């Protein structure tokens, strides 16, 4: 698999604390790579290492095969980025903000109009950024990241602080970028639903470590789950545990991960045979949230 970003044993320590710990990233070229993790999981630090803003304590990161540490200028020329909040100069207009980066990248002036069209901000480009809404600032930050048509777009929490309309627009924009220009988008988020709706590949970060990394489809596959509504949920969970099935409570229902040798009918038989009244029993597709919570151990089973 050709990768846009590849890291081996990537580690960054601040004092004794490892913010990023032995991360082996492999973000494939093209498509959207969702970099998922809660706040403080090490996502932004990893992004800073990719951009060469930080030096790794150990390991290395490559962008399109080029080592970031040794060839930073070359890798930086291939990347457009938006890290944390858009770093904009409030006293300048949107167009003037873009023009600063355009000059440094030695691009023609027409490039500003192009990226403003992409983010639908041409009408407000003459206004000072200090008067922009957060959504407009995010779009301008994205426009700046798109200047020069980078091969890789690194976006750190691009939907932070946006209203629902803004989130939907940003999501649509991110999804469209690989289709339009073959750009690889590496987007970090702590919002599971966000990543689920935009990404093809997913990496799950937790406490500085990369817990899983694969295609979204593969990640959400795996053993099927059953959602069971039953009276005496505690007794049912204990019974399932005796049978070797892990159950957890979710609202009024129990969720049971079903190994290959088990069927829904067999579970039903087990519960009914123990005089439990099964009101509903339905197979359920695993969501990214399920995967994340299972991998991070944030959701302990009732019968653990």
């Amino acid at each position, binding site marked *: 698999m050709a990768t846009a970003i590849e890291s081996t044993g990537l580690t960054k320590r601040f004092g004794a604390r490892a913010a990023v710990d032995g991360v082996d990233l492999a973000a494939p070229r093209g498509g959207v790579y969702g970099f998922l993790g809660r706040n403080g999981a090490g996502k932004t630090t990893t992004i800073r290492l990719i951009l*060469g803003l930080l030096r790794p304590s150990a390991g290395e990161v490559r962008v399109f095969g080029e080592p970031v540490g040794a060839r930073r200028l070359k890798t930086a020329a291939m990347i457009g980025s938006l890290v944390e909040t858009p770093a*904009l100069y409030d006293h300048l207009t949107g167009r003037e903000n873009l023009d600063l980066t355009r000059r440094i*990248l030695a691009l023609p002036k027409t490039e500003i109009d192009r990226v403003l069209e992409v983010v639908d901000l041409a009408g407000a480009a003459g206004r000072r950024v200090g008067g922009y809404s957060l959504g407009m600032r995010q779009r301008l930050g994205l426009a700046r990241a798109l200047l020069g048509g980078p091969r890789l777009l690194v976006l750190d929490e691009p939907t932070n602080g946006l209203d629902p309309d803004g989130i939907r627009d940003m999501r649509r924009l991110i999804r469209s970028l690989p289709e339009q220009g073959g750009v690889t988008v590496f987007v970090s988020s702590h919002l599971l639903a966000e990543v689920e709706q935009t990404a093809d590949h997913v990496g799950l970060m937790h406490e500085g470590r990369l817990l899983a990394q694969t295609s979204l489809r593969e990640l959400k596959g795996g053993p099927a789950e059953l959602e069971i509504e039953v009276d005496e949920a505690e007794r049912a969970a204990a019974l399932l545990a005796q049978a070797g099935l892990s159950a957890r409570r979710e609202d009024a229902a129990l969720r049971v991960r079903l190994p290959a040798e088990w069927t829904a009918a067999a579970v039903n038989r087990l519960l009914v045979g123990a005089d439990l009244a099964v009101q509903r029993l339905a197979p359920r597709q695993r969501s990214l949230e399920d995967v994340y919570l299972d991998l991070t151990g944030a959701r302990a089973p009732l019968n653990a």
Partner: protein
Amino acid sequence: MLTLIHVELAKLKRSLALLLCVAAPACVAALCFMMALRRDTPATWELFAVNGEVMWAYFMLPMTVTALTVLVAQMEHAPKAWNHLLALPVLRWKVFLAKALVVLGLVALMSVALYGGVFGAGLLAERLKPGVQLTGPIPLAHSARILAAMYAGALLMVVVQLWAALRFRSFVVPLILGIAGTFAAVAATAAEEGVFFPWLIPVNALAHDPERAAVALSVGFFGGLAALVAMLLHLGRHEVV
């Protein structure tokens, strides 16, 4: 490099930093003007010019440099613009050198504005109040030499202040440094060691002892160049956390 300087200049548009560069020499000129209006006895042009130079060197220059470097650095710190700027395909030390050159350029412009402003204030005072009389030749060349020596000697102070302002995200550190340096300079004006104290070096351009003035100028200028190299090496390798 020219592109980066151009970019830094473009950032100054509508900025407080630019306003400060106009206001600081204008304040000194205004004070000179009011002092001239209040005089009942004739004074020489030389004394009038020295008054402006003293105000500039002792107080206005170090405080303005402190404020200017803080404002220039905060333009990047406040919106966390380093995240973007230092991720671009450009050598980092060049980014910081461009900032230093622009700040030094602004200080040079302020010195020129002060030069014109002080003499303009004297001429205006003479015209507005017939009683005001400034005698003797107008010391244009002498004053230009003094202000040029102050500027060159101030290089070390400018670089030290800029270094602190760029290094620390909080503006408090460079502000305290500037205030403390200015206060110490005023309190220890006559100290022999003053020729080595960055905030006092510009004042030494006015010293009657030419040797002392020359030593101060050398320390300020060559020390400033050395500090500039050290700053570029340090900030060029500094991580953006």
